[in-house]
């Protein structure tokens, strides 16, 4: 069966998956390029406008606000996630029962839904009903409740960041722990005999030997942040004044409640180009780490 017919039998087994990707990834992508060149809505007839939608985006202040906010969110949260994730990995990388348990607990929020966790934190941060305001008042840190969402874009941003750090810090931790555990024991022993302190060893051995993992996790995490939606849709709804409307939220608002499918497609294409750049970077790095 592995002689001449094997080649075609193989294609036969591959066909369903290829058909699926063609129908639900490749075809919509081509359709999206086509739609982005039109004034296209479900209600009225479509009209070819060339690059009109892209010009519209260029001149749309909300487009720049959303893009800037999305980058700012990514720029703030990524280093926090990496540093905190790595510190927790250092703390828990040894396989003692308590550390294994801690690792498991830190990873637990990663498996629950982002929607559910956003709703949970929306409640914790609630002005009247939230336990965060209650605890801050009880601890004497603030004298009256803080209005976390809807009033100040920066306060909202940091509240969302706090909730997402809780939700996904375990993702980096688990990959860092694997990388740290893969460091050969002899290397650590050699420097221990040299009398290097713990932090010297981290700087000279652990960090350089896990650098590739750190870089890859940074990219995966940054791509995830550039695509942020659930947390902002649920917790801030883009408020105040659409200042916390992320790129994906802007696409959603244009395409669905407003049904401006042409403009939504153009925005999607711009986002896809940004993500593609990051992904190519990631693939190049992965290739290199294998070779």
């Amino acid at each position, binding site marked *: 069966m592995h002689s001449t017919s094997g080649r075609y039998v193989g294609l036969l087994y*591959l066909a369903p998956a*290829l058909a699926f990707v063609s129908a639900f990834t490749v075809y*919509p992508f081509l359709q999206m390029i086509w739609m982005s060149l039109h004034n296209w809505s479900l209600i009225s007839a479509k009209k070819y406008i060339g690059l009109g939608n892209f010009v519209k985006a260029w001149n749309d202040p909300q487009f720049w606000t959303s893009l800037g906010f999305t980058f700012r969110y990514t720029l703030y949260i990524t280093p926090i996630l990496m540093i905190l994730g790595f510190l927790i990995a250092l703390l828990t990388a040894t396989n003692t029962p308590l550390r294994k348990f*801690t690792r498991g607990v*830190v990873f637990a929020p990663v498996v629950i839904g982002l929607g559910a966790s956003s709703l949970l934190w929306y409640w914790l941060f*609630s002005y009247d*009903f939230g336990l965060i305001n209650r605890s801050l008042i009880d601890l004497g840190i603030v004298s009256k409740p803080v209005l976390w969402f809807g009033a100040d874009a920066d306060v909202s941003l940091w509240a969302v960041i706090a909730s997402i750090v809780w939700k996904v810090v375990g993702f980096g931790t688990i990959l860092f722990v694997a990388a740290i555990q893969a460091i050969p024991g002899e290397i650590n022993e050699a420097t221990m005999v040299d009398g290097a302190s713990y932090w010297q060893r981290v700087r000279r051995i652990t960090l350089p030997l896990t650098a590739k993992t750190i870089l890859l996790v940074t990219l995966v995490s940054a*791509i995830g942040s550039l695509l942020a939606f659930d947390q902002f849709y649920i917790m801030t709804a883009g408020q105040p004044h659409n200042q916390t409307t992320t790129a994906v939220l802007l696409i959603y608002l244009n395409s669905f409640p407003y049904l401006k499918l042409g403009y939504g497609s153009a925005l999607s294409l711009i986002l896809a180009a940004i993500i593609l750049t990051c992904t190519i970077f990631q693939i190049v790095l992965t290739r290199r780490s294998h070779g």
Partner: protein
Amino acid sequence: MSAEREMRMSTGYFASARAMEGDRRGFVERLLDGRAKYLVGAACIALCTVMLLPLLASVLASLKSTAEAAAVPPTYFPHGLSLDSYHRLWNFQAGLLTYLGNSAGAALLTILFCLGLTIPAGYALGRFPVPGKEFFFLVLLLGLIIPYQALLTPLFFLFVQLKLHNSLVGLAIVHTAIQLPFSIYIMRNAFEAVPRELEEAAVIDGCNSWQVLVRVFLPAIVPAIITVSLFAFITSWNEFLAALVIMNKDTSFTLPLILAAARQQTSIGGTDWGMLQAGITISVIPCIAFYLLLQKYYVAGFLNGAVK
């Protein structure tokens, strides 16, 4: 496990090296060493507390009575346990069972689609000399390059034409598209790892390729099947944006959608926080349960597929 052994070896080695030096280190240093151990323990316990408190607060809030759940300022611990919130959730709009059914249905279909597509594809990629194999592999991984968030506008249009919007099959198709690259990757690796002798024995016995797949490979790739199913379930059960776009009739909502809607619209006027926490608790339970049961597959999936 090997790391643990290395660790023990290394501390043993260190101890003997120190013994040879006659332990020149002073009393204070040794005391600090001991204290570091307690500091690490304390840090671990503090970390666990911070990570678990939000979940615990949610579960406790879901058990408060109707009046207590709406109290300002909120109470830390419920004064009495009550299932009022769960009762209200049970009867909320089309009823909890409708939404649980939608979520479970979409998740089940996603698992079936993922396995149905990627088992044969992994078989082909792992065991057949398909012409242009690496090109096809890259095509199947396209979802990694084109994020589904950017494809929802044309997908929505396509689904309206195909009458797949407001249908669980439509939603499961998007969830399958999200999971496909990861699943293909895991399956290909699993098929490639099966020893050639097993396959050859079956071929000599006169099995055709389909029989070889069913009799030889399927039993051998059970761990990959579990990993793919687990991740497909978690993705579909938790996914929010595609569901929001495709399911816009309130009887077709999934659990995350009805909870997000319940944040705004309740009969009492304000948000029914107790009911919301009951909903969060119910949507979190299967994720945590599968995580605890299948932790091994979970971690393996993350390490093998998340970053590659």
